[in-house]
């Protein structure tokens, strides 16, 4: 059913169709309206076999879901920015406990200075947690990502938390016509959550045991194995989704003009704008391709190597930075393309909601291709540092 809704609702509606048993969250801009929508559905009795809990913090929200997930419940939360950082202790733990909690993360900058606006710094900070991270370009993709997230996370070969990352404000607050899925489509696609091991008095297992040095490392190896298996399974689920929904979002990557020698690489909603930028620059005679990276963890190294192996120049648009080094995506991409000869230009831009216009991006890319633009921050004003 096609309907014009905001990004929040596209996520909330998809969550409802996945029939979660426990939903728990704490308000934070720009996430709040996702769980407000779910709270309304709960209040109206639209969520069966479900408990909606208003936690006292994101930390508590994630903790409640750890207990619920270990007891065999399908769980959902949404958070971002400070909330995600506050959750981080629990999320690292949930990943290690192999609990397939699904999280919607409308990306937002990190304090200080406080900023409610968009960049990707929050989810990047959880890069090493053992959480699958998928970045979406628009609200239909966000809507479609939720059932896929459950299917992948809950698969016995994976059992890891799954984070759907969507740009805060740029997507969450935007109205878009969305093809809202039918319940029957999701029911056919997503099996009920039936974990093999869960907390029950019928078979009293102990969860969250500690591991001394003789066995700790093996649990981390097992998590890495799960990430590796997730990589293959995700491709399969993405294809299956295309069959079910008729929409093809690509695999871990979507590559436009793969035969190019020059590429722009980016994640999230900025890709929507870049599609147009690339078309226009090609019309100027620039042989430019575009890589939309969807999966950030597990990182699709092989796919990137196969598409970008022959590239001469790669321009990475980073909306987060590992302070003291460089843009997060650039770091990952350079590592993935080690041994290849492409020049990689890392552009850090759009932090804390700094607007990115089409002209600005076009100029940057044009200049970078002409060799007139080096790696670094783009779009930041000149300033003199003072201590008042």
């Amino acid at each position, binding site marked *: 059913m096609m309907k014009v809704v905001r990004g929040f609702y596209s996520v909330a509606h998809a969550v409802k169709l996945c029939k979660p048993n426990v939903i728990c969250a704490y308000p934070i801009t720009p996430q709040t309206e996702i769980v407000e929508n779910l709270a309304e559905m709960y209040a109206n009795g639209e969520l069966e076999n479900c*408990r909606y809990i208003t936690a006292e913090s994101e930390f508590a929200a994630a903790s409640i879901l*750890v*207990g619920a997930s270990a007891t065999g419940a399908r769980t959902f939360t949404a958070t971002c920015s400070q909330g995600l950082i506050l959750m981080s202790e629990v999320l690292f733990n949930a990943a290690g406990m192999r609990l397939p909690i699904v999280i919607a993360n409308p990306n937002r900058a990190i304090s200080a200075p406080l900023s409610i606006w968009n960049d990707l710094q929050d989810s990047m900070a959880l890069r090493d947690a053992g959480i699958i991270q998928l970045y979406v370009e628009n609200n239909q993709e966000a809507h479609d990502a939720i059932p896929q997230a459950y299917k992948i996370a809950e698969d016995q070969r994976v059992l890891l938390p799954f984070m759907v990352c969507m740009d805060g404000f740029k997507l969450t607050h935007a109205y878009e016509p969305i093809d809202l899925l039918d319940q029957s489509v999701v029911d056919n696609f997503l099996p009920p959550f039936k974990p093999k091991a869960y907390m029950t008095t019928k078979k009293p297992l102990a969860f969250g045991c500690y*591991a001394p040095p003789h066995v700790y490392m093996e649990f981390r190896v097992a998590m890495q194995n799960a990430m590796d298996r997730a990589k293959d399974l995700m491709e399969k689920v993405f294809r299956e989704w295309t069959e079910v929904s008729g929409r093809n979002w690509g695999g871990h990557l979507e590559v436009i003009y793969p035969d190019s020698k020059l590429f722009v690489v980016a994640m999230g909603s900025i890709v929507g704008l870049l599609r147009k930028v690339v078309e226009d620059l090609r019309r100027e005679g620039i042989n430019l391709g575009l890589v939309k990276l969807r999966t950030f963890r597990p990182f699709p190294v092989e796919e990137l190597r196969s598409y970008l192996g022959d590239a001469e120049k790669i321009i990475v648009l980073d909306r987060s930075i590992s302070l003291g080094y460089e843009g997060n995506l650039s770091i990952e991409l350079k590592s993935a393309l080690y041994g290849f000869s492409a020049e990689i230009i890392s552009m850090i831009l759009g932090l804390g909601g700094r607007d990115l216009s089409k002209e600005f991006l076009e100029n940057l890319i044009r200049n970078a291709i002409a060799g007139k633009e080096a790696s670094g921050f783009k779009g930041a004003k000149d300033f003199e540092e003072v201590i008042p």
Partner: protein
Amino acid sequence: MKFFGRGHGACPGCGLTTAVRNVLNALDGRCFVANSTGCLEIISSQYGKNAWGVPYIHSLFDNTAAVACGISEALKALKREEEGKVVVLAGDGATADIGLTLHGMFDRNHDVIYICLDNEAYQNTGHQQSGLTPFGESTTTTPAGKLILGKMGRKKDMVAIAIAHGSPYVATSSAVLPADIRRKVKKAAGIEGAKYIQIHCPCVTGWGIDGKDVVKVGNLAIETALYPIVEFENGKLISVRKIKDRKPVEEYLKPQRRFRHLFTDPRGKEVIAEIQRIADRNAEKYGLDLKKE
């Protein structure tokens, strides 16, 4: 079927395990245990050496109440409430200091029996002070020195906090009163909502006492009114463990290494006098003294 196996790693004479065995027996093993990081977790839940015979979860130090809320709500959502009660077993530091998810549990009144195993310090990491460490105790982070004689703050009144939250059932007990623990846990199991039971658990290593003296020292805490054994239902005091001949606090303090400085330092007398005043106030507040005919 045993609920808590032998072969666990607790120190000989540990009060925690006596308390835990009686809690689990009171519920006939029909329970889900959420345990915070700490002594109990370390002695019972090493991978492959698990001591638990009931479903058990350890997540973190600071989130045990919230994890228990999640279990309780999941059981409701999945219509499996009949399987058993949700019990938190958390230490005093995990309860009074770092584990503030406790207030959300009270606030939303989840059906959880929260049991604080109070051995009055972070004993697992080697006896550091917690919010439930009593006044005057020497710990490794509040050591008795030339200037300061141990912890100069007071023991946090978690009972009052639980009552203020509107908890339907709040009680204290002691590892030296196994029958009292069982009665109170059974009672709590019959009440819907977030219950709080704080159990005083003697710690041989932290307190510096011998296994043989565990029960004697534990009883002295009660007999001096330093650990009032009380029971509240819906905020009303419904029972107290009366004291026949209240003993001076010195009798409780003296056998324990953690209070030894109070008897060697000349200024210790003032601290002991203050501890006596705390005991007197407890006795008056809860009416602990058995009136002589």
